[in-house]
């Protein structure tokens, strides 16, 4: 029973159990505040837990990680301000629900779905880690580039209203992401010789400004309107609801695990891709997407929590971080005298099973803490707007400053907030802007890596794509999704459906 003992270590020692619980609880709040990120919390914990033993230190970090990924949804639903990049998609349908007075239901569903996603991620980690990490390693720069292209095509589903405006917003996001020293050659781009632009524009500052400040400004229009009363009688979703969304949640969890396991992509991209997937496969949502569709909550929330387990896969099997948080945890293991790498599973298998156990525990605590205390949270949106708006602004400023301890980021945040307000005013969706910023680097770096690897020869580049099954599948996916969004597709479909029409 060499598996069971370390797996259950965390249950056997009350101290570890308490630390996981504490971490998860704190994580939910850290995650809910925009700008306070899990990455930051975990890196502070490294110094804090320096003198501890490795088990307690890891227990606390895992709790924070699990809780934090879930916590981002809270403010996304209640205030339309995602607490973390991975909750951007959650705001799209979560906030409309809160405006209907269904914040309690929305939080209940996200909690249960996050938990399901979390279990799928941990399950894959426990049972198929070597298999998945082998697959993840196979991704070449050109595959990451194709993945980023797939992501860019999500602009279509994130744009409410005009697609043209959505494409403009997406392109704007990509341009914002390109500002600063180019990461491959360190050449300055769009910096106009200004020092403030040299380091690039903090993506978190853009996100907080665009969602937080612009939301506060927009609310000013209705400052005298009474707040919406929230119904909180039914928080835990019924078994029927869960069962209805189970097939979708399993699909989106799979997306989450795979995207999470890829070194270089994380929960933010996973959640957006899952949202797009849900929009594609759900033929008849109860309400249209963007208007408070339950499916629009299920997809991103399962995916981003499944990505947690996914991110541990390359970390535990190869010593390669799946995302920023696992990168710090590798450092933590190192400081505690372990040697993270491909030999860790062989030298110290008990460490692997202990982490699986701690993740499972954190997932359960997340469910418990998530379903309690909702009443208190929903009070936030019932506050009078004259209190709420300054509070949002304050949180936004603190959050933007905390990312890099830089006052310049606060200015960026405020500037993008005002800019975002006007964008929204004129019907430009903000989702695609953030999507563009997230994907800018992924697309840019990997396209260049891919073409440099082929000696800057397009012929060799395409030959490379079609000689690899993985690249070919991704390429076909990009082409199909692109064509399906053009008028050509509708005409083609019409012709196929009525072959003998004329």
């Amino acid at each position, binding site marked *: 029973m060499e598996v069971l003992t370390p797996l259950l270590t965390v249950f056997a020692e009350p101290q570890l159990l308490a630390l996981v619980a504490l971490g998860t609880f704190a994580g939910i709040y850290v995650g809910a505040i925009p700008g306070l990120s899990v*990455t930051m919390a*975990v*890196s502070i914990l*490294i*110094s804090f837990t*320096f*003198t501890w033993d490795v088990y307690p230190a890891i227990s606390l970090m895992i709790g924070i990680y699990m809780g934090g990924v879930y916590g981002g949804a809270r403010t996304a639903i209640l205030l339309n301000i995602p607490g973390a990049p991975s909750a951007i998609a959650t705001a799209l349908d979560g906030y409309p629900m809160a405006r209907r007075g269904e914040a309690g239901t929305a939080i209940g569903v996200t909690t249960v779905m996050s938990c399901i996603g979390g279990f799928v991620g941990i399950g894959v980690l426990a049972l198929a880690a070597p298999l998945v990490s082998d697959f993840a*390693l*196979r*991704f*070449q*720069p050109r595959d990451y580039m194709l993945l980023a292209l797939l992501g860019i095509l999500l602009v279509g589903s994130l744009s409410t209203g005009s697609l043209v405006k959505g494409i403009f917003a997406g392109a704007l996001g990509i341009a914002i992401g390109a500002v*600063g*020293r180019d*990461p*491959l*050659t*360190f050449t300055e781009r769009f910096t106009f010789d200004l020092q403030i632009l*040299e*380091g*690039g524009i903090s993506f978190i500052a853009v996100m907080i400004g665009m969602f937080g400040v612009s939301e506060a400004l927009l609310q000013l229009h209705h400052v005298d309107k009474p707040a919406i009363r929230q119904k909180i009688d039914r928080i835990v979703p019924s078994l029927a609801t869960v069962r209805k969304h189970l097939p979708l949640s399993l699909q989106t969890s799979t997306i989450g695990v795979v995207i999470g396991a890829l*070194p*270089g992509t994380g929960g933010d991209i996973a959640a957006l891709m899952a949202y797009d997937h849900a929009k594609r496969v759900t033929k008849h949502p109860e309400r249209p997407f963007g208007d408070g569709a339950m499916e629009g909550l299920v997809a991103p929330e399962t995916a981003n929590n499944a990505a947690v387990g996914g991110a541990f896969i*390359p970390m535990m099997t*190869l*010593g*390669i*971080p799946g995302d*920023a948080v696992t*990168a*710090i*945890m*590798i*450092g933590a293991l*190192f*400081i505690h*005298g372990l*040697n*993270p*790498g*491909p*030999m*860790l599973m*062989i030298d110290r298998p008990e460490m692997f099973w202990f982490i699986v156990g701690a993740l499972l525990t954190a997932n359960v605590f997340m469910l418990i803490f998530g379903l309690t205390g909702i009443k208190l949270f929903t009070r936030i949106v019932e506050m009078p707007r004259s209190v709420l708006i300054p509070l949002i602004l304050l949180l936004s400023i603190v959050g933007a400053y905390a990312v*890099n*301890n830089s006052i310049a980021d606060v200015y960026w945040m405020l500037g993008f907030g005002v800019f975002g307000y006007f964008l929204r005013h004129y019907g430009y969706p903000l989702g695609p802007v953030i999507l563009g910023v997230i994907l800018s680097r992924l697309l840019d*770096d990997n396209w*260049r*890596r891919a073409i*440099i*690897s082929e*000696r800057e020869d397009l012929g060799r580049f395409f030959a490379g794509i079609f000689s690899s099954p993985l690249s070919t599948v991704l390429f076909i996916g990009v082409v199909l999704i692109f064509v399906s969004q053009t008028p050509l597709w509708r005409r083609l479909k019409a012709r196929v459906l009525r072959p003998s029409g004329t």
Partner: protein
Amino acid sequence: MKHVILSAVSVLAIGLGAAQAEDYPTKEIQGIIQWGAGGSTDTVMRSVTPHAEEALGGTIVMQNMTGAVGAIALNHVASSDPDGYTLLMGAENPLLYKVMGLGDKDYNDFVPVSILARGTPLVVANVDAPFDDYAEMVAYVKANPGEVRFGATGPGGLPSVITAMINTVEGELDVIAVPYDGDGPALTALQGGAVDVMPAVLGIAIEGIRAGTMKPLAVFDVAETDKLPGVPPVTAFNPAFETYLPWGPFFGVFAPKGTPDEVVAKLSDAYAQGVANPEFVELMENRGFELMGISGQEATDFLTKWQQGTTWLLQDGGHTKASPEEFGIARPGE
């Protein structure tokens, strides 16, 4: 609460009272880490600093400030008050900023508190690569120009220096240099086959070599290392490398120029004790780092020599944006 305010006020008063070195430290010290959380600089700093804090009897709050290959953190600390309450925790690359056109400041604007440790470079290859040691690799590259992919981390990074060294010694090799965000992602790409060869620091590659997910071609040092028995030093293949070796990246703690000597001495002493801590020694040895713990003139000399050798090597390889001469960096041996 009253108590806290009172002590805060008194701390402030002491701070204003010309920060007497005997009392140092009277408040929290900020340690700005040049690189992101989880990287090697970050892990080294977070492992040594708690031991140094103990010796110092003060608190050092560490914070990562990334961007522009560390130049943002460097400029931030260089422009802060030289009172010993803001320290830079960095690696070797700022010494290349000037010649690479990345900034006009480097460690010459600082006083070295302690050069903690030095890493040994080596060259690793994908397990399926059609060569098994350094000599075979050079022969293969010469027979197949423009086919072999080298991992890189951008201008001034360790791979660029090692590649420049190889090109200087062996004559220009026609390889494709594929840039990655850091040695971690590049080694991931190496295992996935996107890159064939990667110059890296021993510490980050050692676990992969142990597990057989990558194979070592040569250690870039003048002698074999006991961490990797059986892997020959590159000088065994070509003695001409002796001119440039030993060479390696390093980690160090720095204070802005103008920091009172007594304060620097206190900090240097604390970090020297931190480096000597058995836990830290074991940690660094496991990862193949060589401990240094030097300060004062010794550290300054080390930095000068390092900068001269590396910048001129890059200059001669045609990798720089500006000649070291422009910044008064003398050619080694002159």
